[in-house]
């Protein structure tokens, strides 16, 4: 780095806000360049001189500001999409779907318990393999059902411009 580059970096060097490599380069340059070392001292002195203390705020300022604020009606925050919203919506939809299929299974009216829908059996797999294949297929079906539900829930929240309290706390 040349001296003009160093001069431009000195204020930030003094504030220790330079990237480590740049800071090291400035430090190395300052140790070998008396002109820049003098400029550094000068910048340090200038900063110390001008960075005087601020005036205290007038004692009544706080009360005046807050009186204005309290007189102002509060506006609701516009709702912003979060990734968590989608995850929660999908989770909720899957849970509802699982509950429905579970109840159907109890009454043995779910296709899970018929021989009509058992692709694992065609492959001649063991009971475990058949169960895994079935579970995977139902998960895909569940996602196909839950994604539109999640999207609808999300759209409804976005339309209302405000998340329900229980939702915002999550």
């Amino acid at each position, binding site marked *: 780095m040349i001296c003009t580059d160093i001069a*431009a970096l000195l*204020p*930030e060097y003094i*504030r220790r*806000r330079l990237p480590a490599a740049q800071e090291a380069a400035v430090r190395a340059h300052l140790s070998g360049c008396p002109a820049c070392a003098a400029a550094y001292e000068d910048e340090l002195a*200038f*900063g110390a*001189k*001008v*960075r*005087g*203390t*601020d*005036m*205290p*705020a*007038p004692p009544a*300022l*706080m009360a*005046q*500001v*807050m009186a*204005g*604020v*309290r007189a*102002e009606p*509060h*506006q*609701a*925050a*516009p709702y912003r999409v979060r990734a968590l919203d989608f995850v929660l919506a999908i989770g909720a939809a899957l849970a509802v779907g699982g509950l429905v299929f579970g109840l159907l299974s109890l009454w043995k009216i779910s296709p899970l318990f018929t021989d009509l829908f058992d692709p694992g059996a065609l492959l001649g797999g063991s009971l475990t393999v058949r169960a895994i294949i079935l579970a995977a297929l139902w998960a895909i079906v569940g996602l196909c059902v839950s994604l539109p539900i999640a999207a609808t829930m999300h759209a409804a929240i976005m339309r209302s411009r405000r998340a329900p309290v229980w939702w915002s706390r999550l």
Partner: protein
Amino acid sequence: MSAMAIARQLTRSWTPQAAPVDDEKTLVRRGQAGDNDAFARLVERNQMGVYNLALRMTRDPEEAVDLTQETFLRAWRSLPGFRAEAKFSTWLYRIAYNVCLSRRIVHPSTFADPNAADSIPMPEGEEPPAVILRQERRERVVAAMHRLTPAYRLVLDLYYWRDCTYEEIAAILDLPMGTVKTHLFRAKAALRTVLVAEGGAA
């Protein structure tokens, strides 16, 4: 370890640690939900910075109070839309700058071209140099600052008094960082010149 103790430990490890109530983000969130007291804490913490910035720009304590009030009121109105990506103070300074713009204390064209700032004459100081000489260092710097153009005062105040970074100043003034650096460089040179001219070694 009893089952109860295990359950207690599990519950404890699952319970999220409560965020400090005084944390800026928490206060902002509470303020966004309409909590006046949380906003009051934010005002309390930032009033000195905004007031002093206003004082620097207006050079009049009464007008500075008025400008500070308007800044906080605008902040309260726009708080629901504030994204906590920036520091709250930086956002406040941007609002204060906008108030300065709407009151024509500073004009955006001053910042558009760093070279144009050079041609703006420095306003005449109200105090004769002999009086300034007798003043304390702080008053001397304040008086010297008051002789600079509003644009110079603003960038110097943001950098040296508000301790903003180049990025923050660029965000506040909506300028490229290179332009901010140029303004700051020139403003500093102008302040040094005024300080030297008025007897205080810069």
